[in-house]
């Protein structure tokens, strides 16, 4: 917006906030710029972000559900899985990206970002798959077996449908986490809303990083609501009140 020397976000913010009359002409957000560049810069970044997060979540679900089912069946697996995925979960995102690129040698771009986001999601998802399967009442499984359902039928017709709300609750937590971490993915060239934020900071242009941050927040809130909705839709039986006569 102008030629301030210290290009840090905080300073820019403060200066914009406490700017003198002449500097305030432009303000904190340059609405005109936003209007002109919205379709060209902002929307693609948003879609990249959505793509990045949801593709990562999808891959993580595909990995977690079978692993969770295995862990629920073969209990000894579970502590190992939580230890390993828990370890991934504790790695700070910058370190994770660094390791993926400089130690493992992946090229900069979307791939290492998606891998990192998948790794971050695994702990929550696997845990919820196992919790969900554990929450299926034993008598329901016994009745199912007693009526002649095969193990596979019990899994797909009884256990997974009953575990689904809990699994979706895990997806809810995972997507919110991933949306936040994906911002940092821009640092290694993954694109997305992080681009707007990093760009804004380097160019000392608050409009950019505020737009990026606000959209990331809205995206997280929106996704959260989406999954709450899904959770309810997938368990209509739990919604109906007790109407015993």
């Amino acid at each position, binding site marked *: 917006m102008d030629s301030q020397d210290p290009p840090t976000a905080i300073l820019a913010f403060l200066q914009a906030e406490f700017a003198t009359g002449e500097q305030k002409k432009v303000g904190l957000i340059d609405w005109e710029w936003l209007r002109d560049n919205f379709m060209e810069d902002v929307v693609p970044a948003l879609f990249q972000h959505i793509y990045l997060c949801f593709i990562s979540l999808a891959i993580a679900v595909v990995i977690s559900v079978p692993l969770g089912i295995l862990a629920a069946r073969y209990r000894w697996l579970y502590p190992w899985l939580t230890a390993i995925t828990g370890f991934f979960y504790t790695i700070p995102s910058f370190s994770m990206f660094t390791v993926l690129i400089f130690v493992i040698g992946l090229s900069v771009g979307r791939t290492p970002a998606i891998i990192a986001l998948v790794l971050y999601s695994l702990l929550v998802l696997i845990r919820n798959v196992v919790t969900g399967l554990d929450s299926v009442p034993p008598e329901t499984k016994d*009745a199912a077996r007693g009526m002649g359902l095969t193990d596979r039928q019990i899994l797909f017709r009884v256990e997974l449908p009953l575990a689904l709300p809990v699994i979706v609750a895990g997806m809810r937590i995972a997507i919110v986490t991933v949306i936040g971490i994906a911002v940092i993915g821009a640092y290694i060239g993954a694109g997305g809303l992080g681009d707007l934020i990093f760009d804004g900071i380097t160019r000392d242009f608050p409009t950019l990083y505020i737009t990026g941050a606000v959209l990331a927040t809205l995206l997280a809130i929106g996704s959260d609501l989406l999954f709450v909705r899904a959770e309810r839709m997938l368990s209509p*039986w739990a919604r109906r009140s007790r109407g015993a006569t």
Partner: protein
Amino acid sequence: MIEFKNVSKTYAGSDRAVVNDLTFTIQNGEICVLVGPSGCGKTTSMRMVNRLIEPTQGEILIDGQKNTSMSGTQLRRKIGYAIQQIGLFPHRTIASNVATVPNLVGWDKERTASRVDELLDLVGLPPDQYRDRYPAELSGGQQQRVGVARALAADPPIMLMDEPFGAVDPITRDRLQNEFLNIQQDIKKTIVFVTHDIDEAIKMGDKIAILKEGGILAQYDTPENILANPTSDFVSSFVGTDRVLKRLSLVRVRDMDLEPANGGDNLPRISDKLTLKDALSEIIGAGAERGLVVPDGNGGNPRGTLSIDAIKALSHEAEVSSG
């Protein structure tokens, strides 16, 4: 017909049998109640019929064929299964719950739907009202009705029922028992019925198998014979010191030879539908020596009178005949 032949079950890592050399035969169309204290192996014995548990020794024949002659799942689809905790599928509607086995064995939609309605009617849940509800919307008693309907769905000749009326209050249980006995008169299933409650066993059973700890068959006979003639101290203490009264509860007033009713206007009136135990209670309660027997439903002419002595004679007879 279900035949237990020297069936034993010992779990791996334990040297004590849960079921010990069980041999007895359940005739077609009979309710056989397995009863005993906890740890007597009654549920284990029942679960070996449809191979939810495999015996370590011996075999179980169903209509002369070993129950291992087909896969466990195939077998189970042909045997109704109802348990105390019911285990309805919470995510499925009542109709879909009842339709479980018909769907597994591939009935077409129409046949399944009409069968579901028929069964809901049978267990006293109007289909229009209950078909599309979820189990959580039903009371415990209603859920148990659905559990029974679900077990009956594919019209299996054999039913396994593990305390199917256990999870409800005594009044509801009594009603469900009566309704089920009525249903059984029409459907004539061969039923293995597990309970820990001797009163329920006496009420429901055509035959009672009393098991004691360690899965040993203590006595297998009709309720009448077990009450009249317990073969061991264990059985007589298990059936209780009131076994004479319990036995009276098996006989109804209308099955008794009555004395003529000449001028018994001031006698207590007893419905001929009552059991002798209830009749005795009425007579004693009225401070009388005899009661005037009238047809069920108050109206109608007296059929005769029933005296305490006649009741006494009957129970005494039983004691004598039991030696």
